[in-house]
Structure formats: C-alpha cells, structure tokens
C-alpha cells in the first residue's frame, strides 16, 4: 500500500451526486484507505457493517492512531462514545468515531473500570474537548491533560465520584436528584 495518503487522488474525492450507485463501493475504498493508515493496529479490525470498521486500540497508542488518521485528512472525529460493559465484565470502552463520506471508522479503547484513563486528543483535534469533558463526567474516565476538565452537563451541586451513565448508578428513591454509586 503506497504510504502517500490515498486521499490525494482526485477520483477518490467525493463527486457529489453522480456516484449514488456505487455509494457502497466508495465506502469500501475509504475503509481500505483507513486500514492502510492504521496498519499496525488494523490487523484484528472487524467490519460489523459494510460501511463500518472497528479497530481495537490500546490506550497508549490512541494518540498515534488519531494522528495517522488526522494527518491524512481522513474524515473528522464525529463523536466519542463511552460504553460501560457492566460491573461483571469489569471493563469500559471509549469509542472514537471518525466519519468520511459513508464510511465510519471506530477506534475502540478498552479501559479497566476503576481508574480508567485516556490521553487527550485535543492537541490534534481541538474541538474534541466537549466530548472528552462529557466522557469524564459521565463515566469517570480521567482524560489526561485535557484543556478544560470542568463539568459540561452535570449541575454544580452534583456529588463527585457519582457517574450517572455507569451501569451501577442507582437513582435515588425520590427520583429527582442525586443517585448513589452502588460500589
């Protein structure tokens, strides 16, 4: 696979409306390009859907993977999703979704439940700070050296250490307020 990013070739650039027929084959070529970019980790990447590719990434290599995609201008970071696999599985996942055309590449970072931490990608993609703030306040994942670690959504008087989107978050009986973390 030529190292020069595939994206520079003109025919790959999205022609707006004439290519509706081979929309899917367009997505495949994009996924191939992404796979080429993420070579060392893409070995065990899976294709859950024709236009989607999941690439498991260890937390340490996250920055390198994001840098690879970002430098080749492969799409944009559309969202960061936190996923709690439940107290019994004892693991959490942070999914970094990159979108380009119809193709979606998800970098899956597996994290332990108690002190999960992820490097911040704000250096490369400054607008990711919102997503990281939401990830940290909802799941308790500490995002190292993120520009602004303060709360985004939860109210000021929300007790610390209580992460609402975790599976073991118990709603307080009055329903309206501070749930407790059934550790």
């Amino acid at each position, binding site marked *: 696979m030529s190292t020069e990013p595939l994206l520079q070739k003109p025919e790959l650039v999205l022609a*707006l409306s004439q290519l509706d027929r081979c929309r899917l084959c367009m997505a495949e070529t994009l996924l191939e390009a992404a796979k080429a970019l993420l070579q060392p980790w893409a070995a065990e990447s899976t294709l859950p859907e024709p236009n989607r590719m999941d690439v498991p990434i260890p937390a340490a290599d996250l920055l390198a993977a994001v840098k690879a995609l970002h430098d080749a201008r492969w799409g944009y*970071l559309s969202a960061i999703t936190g996923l709690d696999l439940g107290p019994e599985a004892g693991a959490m996942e942070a999914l970094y979704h990159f979108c380009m055309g119809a193709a979606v590449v998800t970098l899956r970072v597996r994290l332990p439940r108690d002190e999960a931490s992820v490097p911040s990608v704000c250096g490369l993609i400054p607008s990711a700070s919102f997503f990281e703030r939401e990830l940290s306040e909802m799941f308790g994942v500490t995002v190292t050296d993120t520009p602004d670690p303060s709360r985004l959504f939860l109210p000021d008087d929300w007790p610390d250490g209580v992460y609402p989107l975790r599976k073991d978050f118990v709603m307080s009986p009055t329903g309206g307020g501070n749930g407790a973390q059934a550790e």
Partner: protein
Amino acid sequence: MPTTEPREKFIVPIGPQHPALKEPGHFEFTVDGEIVTGATARLGYVHRGIEKGTEDRSWVQNLYLLERICGICSHSHALAYALGVEKLAGVEAPPRAQAIRVLVAELERIHSHLLWLGVAAHEAGFDTLFMYSWRDRETVMDLLENLTGNRVNYSANVLGGVKFDVSVEQADAIRRGLDFLEERTQHYLTVVTTDSMFLRRTRGIATMSKQQAEALGVIGPTARASDVPRDVRVESPYAAYTTFPVEAVLATAGDLEARFLVRVKELFESYRVIREILDRMPAGDLTARMPRRVKEGETVSRIEAPRGELFYFIKSGGGDRPERVKARTPSMFNFASVLTLAVGHQLADIPMIMAGIDPCFSCNDRLVVVNRIGHEADVWTWEKLRQYGIEYYRR
C-alpha cells in the same frame, strides 16, 4: 492552560427577555488584551439525563423520549433512532414509509430555517423581518399539522415505518403551501443579499476559510458556507434520499452572509425535493413488522438535521431495552468547533460567530465572563460583548 488567578464563576439568573429559543448557557472566554486565548462553555441547564433515561425504557418508549430532545428537530432525532434500530433488527421500512419520512424531514428543515431567519433578524433588532418570517413560517406549521396532527413534535416515525399516509388533498395543500413559501423565500433572499442594514452585520464577519472549516470539523450549513461539501444526505444517503437525491448547497465566502445564503438556498432545495416526492410517491404499505426484542449488536446512524450531522450510536444487548443510546447533537459539535475557532479571534467577533452556527439554543441571556490577564475578571452580559464587538469594529 486556564489562567492561574482564580476565576469566580458568576451566573446571571435574570430571566431572559424576548426569548426566541433561549436556553441558558454560560460561556467563558480568557482574553489576553483583545485576543481570545481560551474559550470554554458550561452547558447543562437543559441537561435532563436522557441517555440514562433511554436505558430504562423499552425500544418503542424511547422513540417518544428522544423526540423531545429538541423541539425544532424532533423528527430528525426520531428518524435517526428509528433507522438505527431498524438496521439492528434487520428490518427495512417500506419505500412509501421512507419517502414520507424524508417528506416530513424536509418540511421540518423549512420550518427550522425560517425560524432561524427570524431569530437572526431579531438578534439584529430587525423586528419587522422577525414578524414577517415567523408569519410565513405559520404556513409550513399548518402543513405539518395538516399532515401529522401536531405543529411541533409531530412523531411521524414508528419503529419500522410511519404512522400516517399522505392523501391526495394533503399533497395538493402542501404544493399550494410551497408555492406561497417559494415566492416569500425569493423575497427573503433579496432582503438578505441587498438590505444594507443586514449586510453591515453579516458581510465579512467571522469568516472561516475552507481549510479552517475542515480542520475544525464544522458540520452542516456552517461548513457548506465555507465550501466544505459535508451533507449526510449526499455523502451517505439514508431513507429515501437515494431515490430522491439532494444537491448540497455550497457557498465559498465562508462569512456570516454566506451562512445566511446557504440556509435560504437550502429552502429552495427542500421545496424541489418535496415536490419530487409528492409527484413520484412510491406505493406500498406504511410499516414493516418489527420484533419486540432487537438482536444483539451495535450500529451507527447518521442523518442530516437542519443544523448539521446528527450522530446516533445504539447498542443492543438482545433484550427489549437498549444497552446504550448515544446522541451527539449537531449544535454540540458546532459549539465545540466554534469555540476553538474563537481562540485567536478578536473578542469582538465572538457574538457573530455564535449566531452564525444557528445554535440549537440562542442564549440571549447567556453571560460571558471575560477575565483579562492582570486584573480581576469582569462579568460581561451577552449584550455588552455584542456592543463591544460592534464598537471595536467601528474604530
């Protein structure tokens, strides 16, 4: 990176005046002299904990919950969710249902863009245009009500299809309504491009070049105004956009006027698509059977809401309740990128940058804490910042 001296957070509680879409928010800008060095936002006044709510509701109940995330693009949320769940369950909505879904989505885009036109005019103090554009918006609200039974939150979607059909009379009513709206939109297009008062507030303000837009990852009409062809309807068409293709409306200037132009021109595009759908409406039934339990799996569903790409991640554990539903709204994305755009800009440009992305909440009453390095933070109201911006440009 935040400045060392303690910044005392002070949130103005006064009820906002003349609310267009006001939802309180709080923006903090660290300023060094005139240049913005840091910008953060504190949302959460409208945070209702919906994503947690989806985990203790069944698949069908979630549809009604997710429709109420945002009053203006409620159909977009329901559509993205429904498409995602159908993909998971391996069910394909019949073509007629897909066409009706796109019809309601485009009607909602018209309603949202006209609403924004009124809000932006009102923000500039141009109340007459606000009154006129909202009066014309009533026409599209009538069409939606005639079609779906409700003016806002029309809940057209059902998992696996649509709730209602489009009769011939309704189709004619829509066509007549669109003719009137098209002529009015033509009038607004001339107002937006020629009215000197408006041009003074929009031309050349908060310009975002193509490279900047791509680097920052701005989406929706704001991106298309800087010639970045990001439109999910074109890139990865969903529902009936494959049979009724849409042309992405682009502008090159990238300033606020271009954003106005893109939104008004998109109205014409919506009229064209709606007429096409009404003429070539595929026959067939309205819903497909949907199993109560969705089989295990994850999916990503992306659609083009009036303000940009709406991203849904849905994970099912095989039960009758979703494991995880993540909705990333376009405004949150636009805000994140706009705040990063703000860094390096003049403090004076901030108000126009904000108004340009048609934030899902136009916080008339939001408060901006400006802390100049060196002396203590002084608290500016939104208006003072706006005024400061304008005076700054006068000098």
